[in-house]
């Protein structure tokens, strides 16, 4: 578990966050937590946001790391029958995979890819 430096209030629960805003304990994640985390950054999670969060979560749990951007874009194109990385950056402008990890309750990606 990472060192907590912030607390997120979700209903009656106090969720501990790292200095970067990631969950200290992945087991604290829920859709309500994701919604609250995103709202702090002015993002209202819609259907496409949830697809991306779920895609990244599934990839992480299957392979032990978040997906490459090229993998994410390929899956997005398959879902939308087209599209590009720009669509994903419109959903999460600070990095689609990184922000999907953030709101998906996954650890902050610590690689330089």
């Amino acid at each position, binding site marked *: 578990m990472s060192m907590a430096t912030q607390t997120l209030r979700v209903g009656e629960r106090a969720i501990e966050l790292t200095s970067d805003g990631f969950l200290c304990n992945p087991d604290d994640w829920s859709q309500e937590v994701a919604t609250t985390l995103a709202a702090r950054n002015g993002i209202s999670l819609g259907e496409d946001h949830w697809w991306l969060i779920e895609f990244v979560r599934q990839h992480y749990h299957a392979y032990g*790391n978040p997906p*490459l951007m090229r*993998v994410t874009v390929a899956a997005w194109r398959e879902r939308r029958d087209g599209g590009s990385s720009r669509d994903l950056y419109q959903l999460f402008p600070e990095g689609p995979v990184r922000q999907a990890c953030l709101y998906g309750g996954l650890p902050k990606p610590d*690689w330089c890819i």
Partner: protein
Amino acid sequence: MQATNDDNSIMLIRAEPQSVEAENAQHEALVALRGCKGEVVVFFHGAGVDHACGAAAGSWQRLAARGLRLEVCSAAWQRRHEGEPEAPFVLSSLVRFWHRVATGYRLVCHREAGRGSRQGATWVIIVTAAPSEADSREILELVLAGASLELPLAVIFRDRGCGQLVGEFARGWRQLVDFDLASLYYTLCAEDFEPGIPASPLDREQAGHLCNTARGVICP
């Protein structure tokens, strides 16, 4: 005449300081520096990032004064150290390493004789590290970084590296197959070896041919 990327060289070092491999690598870097018209870059990854601090840094700093550029994988560094590496080491990334390789930097490999033809299309990465080795996960990151640039990659698991293809260790490597990011091969050893993920067996001759016709061979 201005140097082009073809005149430049790059070397990957993952061996920890004071190891025989690290000494060999430093010797190769010196040879490259003497024989290269362009830039010579040494990229430190895995346990190799420890060269960028403490007593190990001194000999590299002396080579840097003669023109060697020293780059350190930022993720591998941050896993092991706080702050910045000692000057003139600079933080860089695996993607930048691959970008240099893909744009024509000559790969200097201190571990293998087969260095590729530079004419082929595929990059070969030879994995010999057992999954139990401390930084073996970082080898997967090295491959994924190349895949992120959509480079054609072939990974050959050899000797103890074949253990990466079995059981829980294979989980991360499987994404290379599932998303068509790289071709996986293994050379072995025990006749009854069964990889846990799709990978093709190669005999010694086939593996040699793959390396000899590759654009370059990396032995992390």
